[in-house]
C-alpha cells in the first residue's frame, strides 16, 4: 500500500494505522490538519480540496522516502483529503513511528512541511459572506489579465 494516499472527505487515521504499528517502536508522532473557521481574517464556512492525483501520489511518496532516509524512523504515512470538507474535518494526517521520539518528531514535521509546499493540492475556501477563492491564487477574481506568470516570461 502506498505511503501517501488521497481519500474522499475527512481523513480517518484509524484506517491507515496498520502500516505504522510495530512492537519494535516506542514512539509515534502524528500531525492532523483540521479545517478551521478562519483564515487571513475571513470567516471560513467550508473547504474544497482538489489534487493532481497521479503526480501528487508520486511526490508524496518521494517525501516519505526522504523522511525515511533522513531520520531514524521505521514507518511513515500521509493521507490527504479531497473534495468537500466541513469545519473540524481532517484535511491531512501524517503518522510516524520510530524506536525513539526525537526522530519521529523531526520526520513528522519534515513531511507535513514538504507536503504543503510540494504536493499539487489546491484548496478553495468558501466564506460565510458567500465569497470563495482558491488559496494562493493571486488574481483569480480578475481573470482578464494577459500577462503570463513570472516563471514563464522568465523562462
Amino acid at each position, binding site marked *: 500500500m502506498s505511503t501517501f494516499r488521497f481519500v474522499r472527505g475527512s481523513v480517518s487515521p484509524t484506517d491507515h494505522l496498520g502500516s505504522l504499528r510495530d512492537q519494535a517502536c516506542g514512539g509515534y508522532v502524528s500531525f492532523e490538519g483540521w479545517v478551521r473557521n478562519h483564515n487571513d481574517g475571513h470567516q471560513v464556512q467550508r473547504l474544497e480540496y482538489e489534487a493532481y492525483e497521479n503526480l501528487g501520489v508520486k511526490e508524496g511518496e518521494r517525501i516519505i522516502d526522504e523522511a525515511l532516509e533522513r531520520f531514524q524512523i521505521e514507518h511513515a504515512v500521509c493521507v490527504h483529503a479531497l473534495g468537500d470538507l466541513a469545519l473540524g474535518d481532517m484535511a491531512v494526517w501524517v503518522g510516524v513511528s520510530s524506536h525513539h521520539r526525537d526522530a519521529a518528531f523531526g520526520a513528522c514535521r519534515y513531511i507535513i512541511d514538504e507536503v504543503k509546499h510540494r504536493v499539487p493540492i*489546491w484548496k478553495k475556501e468558501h466564506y460565510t459572506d458567500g465569497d470563495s477563492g482558491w488559496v494562493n491564487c493571486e488574481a483569480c477574481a480578475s481573470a482578464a489579465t494577459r500577462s503570463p506568470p513570472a516563471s514563464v516570461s522568465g523562462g
Partner: protein
Amino acid sequence: MKTIRIEYFAALREHTGLSSEEIATDAQTVDQLYAELDGRHEFPALGQLKVAVNDEFGDWQSGLADGDLVVFIPPVAGG
C-alpha cells in the same frame, strides 16, 4: 504537428471551464505551448506556475513529443 493533452486543475480548470483538452500544435517547448494556450484562454495571473509533463515535474524549456500530457501547476495549498 503533434497532439498534446492538457489537464487543468483548480483555478485553471474553473477559468477555462475544462478539465482537459487535446490540441494539435507546432509548439516545440512547454513555454511555447503555454503562450499558445494563453492566447486562446487568457489565463489569469496565478503567481509562479510549475509544469508537469507525463506526470513528472518538468521545466519550461522541456521539449514536447506527440501524445504528451502537460499540466500547468498553480501555487499549491495542501494541508
